[in-house]
């Protein structure tokens, strides 16, 4: 690894870090605006023009609040809980290919921090670690509501990860690679996986909502029954980190969905461009897809009421997992038929 590579990767990492945080901050603003519009309100509009400085005001507020740790709480676990959540949310973005190669200063710069050959497995692995942040936070709080929230979160995530993994396997079967870079390249132009795997996308989307703890699967938080669930006892920037990690994972999972099913940075008519123009257009296309996914996820949150816990388990184990398995088997049969193995 030469010095130029080191610099370009460091710059990319820092940029990604800042962009993830910035996007997460403005997601909170956008979410509040969207909620307001859906409920015939105006939403935050006092801080700056159209309330554009609201996330900054919120951040300052979070920092100025009292940082409270309950007396009977497990202090160390209580502190590292939000840290784990934030860490796992941020680290996933390292394997995402954000665009085609950029040519700067005579170097061909790949817009992907690390091109693992097992990118998608890495994503699933890190997302699974994410539940530890919630579990540890809920356990360390020494509060029954927090513990309920944490237990719900872990059982929900374990159940939905199965269906999520099985529905993603079909994409791996189609592209023949676990690397996110190869998966995106196999969907060149308009050759997106959604046209081959609509059912897999549907299952993946629902399970993503569940993994994100977003409505209608926000049982771990459940303001009305669990008073905030696993972060009941949290305050100040520790609470801020939990909320932030939630929005960051939403950003990342929107990106993952765009990569697996909607062609990542590919867009129709991309062969007409080349070089840096193509790179910038591809980044813009990818950003647009991510934005649309975030919009739909928020739109769903402010439309649908929360599931009951038994309904959630029923949906996960009795509907999504069988559907995903059947989808996988049919895909396998069709691939075998096309390849002439049968």
């Amino acid at each position: 690894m030469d010095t130029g590579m080191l610099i370009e990767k460091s710059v990319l990492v820092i940029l990604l870090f800042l962009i993830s945080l910035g996007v997460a901050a403005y997601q909170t603003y956008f979410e509040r605006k969207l909620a307001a519009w859906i409920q015939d309100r105006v939403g935050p509009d006092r801080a700056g023009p159209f309330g554009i400085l609201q996330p900054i005001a919120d951040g300052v507020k979070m920092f100025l609040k009292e940082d409270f740790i309950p007396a009977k709480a497990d202090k160390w676990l209580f502190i590292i809980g939000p840290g784990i959540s934030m860490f796992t949310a941020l680290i996933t973005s390292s394997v995402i290919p954000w665009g085609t190669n950029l040519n700067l200063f005579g170097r061909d710069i790949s817009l992907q921090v690390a091109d693992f050959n097992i990118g998608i497995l890495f994503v699933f692995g890190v997302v699974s670690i994410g539940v530890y942040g919630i579990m540890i936070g809920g356990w360390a709080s020494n509060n029954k509501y927090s513990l309920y929230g944490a237990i719900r979160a872990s059982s929900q995530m374990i159940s939905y990860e199965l269906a999520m993994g099985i529905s993603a396997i079909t994409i791996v079967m189609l592209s023949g690679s676990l690397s996110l870079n190869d998966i995106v390249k196999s969907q060149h132009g308009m050759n997106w996986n959604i046209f081959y795997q609509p059912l897999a996308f549907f299952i993946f989307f629902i399970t993503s909502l569940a993994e994100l703890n977003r409505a209608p699967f926000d049982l771990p938080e459940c303001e009305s029954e669990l008073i905030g669930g696993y972060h009941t006892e949290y305050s100040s920037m520790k609470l801020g980190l939990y909320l932030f990690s939630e929005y960051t994972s939403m950003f990342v999972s929107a990106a993952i969905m765009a990569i697996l099913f909607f062609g990542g940075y590919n867009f129709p008519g991309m062969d007409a461009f080349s070089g840096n123009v193509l790179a910038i257009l591809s980044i813009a296309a990818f950003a647009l897809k991510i934005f649309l996914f975030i919009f739909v996820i928020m739109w769903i949150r402010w439309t649908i009421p929360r599931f009951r816990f038994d309904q959630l388990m029923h949906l996960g184990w009795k509907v999504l997992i069988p559907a995903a398995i059947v989808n996988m088997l049919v895909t396998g049969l069709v691939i075998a038929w096309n390849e002439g193995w049968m």
Partner: protein
Amino acid sequence: MESLTNRKKVVSDKPMTFLEKIYIPAIVGGMMTTMKHMLRPRKTIKYPEETRVFAPVYRGQHVLKRDEQGRENCTACGLCAVACPAEAITMTSAERVKGEEHLYREEKYASSYEINMLRCIFCGLCEEACPKEAIFLTDRIVTTEFERDEFIYAKDKLVEAIDDRIDITKRQFTGKRTDK
């Protein structure tokens, strides 16, 4: 049994059909509803920048009027206090002495006059009861305070200043509102 009202509803617990069971049509329908709301123009009045247009007959904070020569109209007859359904008005009367003819219009006047704005329901009956055209309700808003006793408005807040008369003509107009 025949229903006597039109409010009777027949309930049933028929099992859900397949389309209902997969929720999707209901969810899409709900999302269309929220989208409709999202695109609707906002009706919110952003208060400090724009204020709501009051009806011309709006009943707000009271004023004790003076006549053209700047003399107080009120004679402390107490009819407003009697008419007041909330018992918000109280007053003490006094006799006008020589040299005060430029202050009070008739021989008797209110030496103190208090309205408790927390009790007042702004019904306007005091205005109707007044035989001397002394008390009127205006389109001013009673401001918020931190202490309860600050809501008891005395003459210093109620009587209009000689050089800063309060316009009450809008209240006298009883026809239809013109701003609509």
